[in-house]
């Protein structure tokens, strides 16, 4: 096993450990509250809070399409951001070509954004 891989593995073991610890933090708190807090199983308060009214209708229905459009935009630009990371480390070495390559990339995506913008997809109406 390569040395660098070894250290990578060690580093991310900490992340794994962190996940476990985080999990147990929440878990312990929940167990503690189970022990300390009163609990009455039979009860009305199960009803959904809606400003003192009984709920109008099941809540988890229809959201705006705009949420979805923003999500798409985000995914695309996220992808672009991911490409930026290797680029920013290497473009100085590679010289102007790599720079303009990325500029082109940004511009193409920017054109997409501009299109969406113009078409009103960014407008919340």
């Amino acid at each position, binding site marked *: 096993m390569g040395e660098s891989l070894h250290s990578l593995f060690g580093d991310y073991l900490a992340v794994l450990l962190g996940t476990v610890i985080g999990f147990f933090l929440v878990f312990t708190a929940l167990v503690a509250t189970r022990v300390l807090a*009163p609990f009455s199983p039979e009860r009305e308060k199960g*009803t959904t*809070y809606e400003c003192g009214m009984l709920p109008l209708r099941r809540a988890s229905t229809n959201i705006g399409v705009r949420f979805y459009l923003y999500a798409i935009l985000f995914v695309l630009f996220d992808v672009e951001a991911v490409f930026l990371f290797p680029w920013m480390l290497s473009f100085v070495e590679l010289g102007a070509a790599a720079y303009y390559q990325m500029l082109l990339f940004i511009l193409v995506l920017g054109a997409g954004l501009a299109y969406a913008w113009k078409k009103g997809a960014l407008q919340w109406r």
Partner: protein
Amino acid sequence: MAMTPSTGAPVEAPAAPADPGVAPLLPAEHPAEELALTPVEHRPGRALYKTLLPGVLQVPADLVLAMGRKSSLWPMTFGLACCAIEMIATYMAHYDLDRFGIVPWPSPRQSDVMIVAGTVTKKMAPAVKLLYEQMPNPKWVISMGACATNGGPYTRYDRVLQGVDKIVPVDVYVPGCPPRPEALIDALVSLQEKIMEERKALGA
């Protein structure tokens, strides 16, 4: 049976009274109303440590928990009428309930105290009840002002509930119309005392 006409989708208008000739009196039993006004049963619930821990260890546990509870009473923001103005004033700079660790939360799920500040009408009563039920235990109710206590100046109007204790159990009554902020602070202090006194029973 729905407790209120909470049909959000506005319903078809009920037919206007056909022959309004002689006004009938309020029927002794208006069925929906009767149901809406039945009191809430308070079920304090039971904490597991009350069963698990031996009695000796329960004493400090009770004490510590009660101290935490009394120092962090979060009321639900719930203003009804004129008294609510004084209640709000109590949160503000000159009286500052935050000194006591009292901060208002909008949702009943996160609140410990319901300060009923103002007249509870019969139309409002089901909502008050529901909100009370939605609060997690342990919870307390402060009846602020004459109206919440027994209907106050409006007792004699029959759309007004003669005291919020008709529908939810009240822990502290503050008289006054409206009680001044200091009176509300006094009530909260007495509620704190009450919590300390009754710490053994809480969560039992």
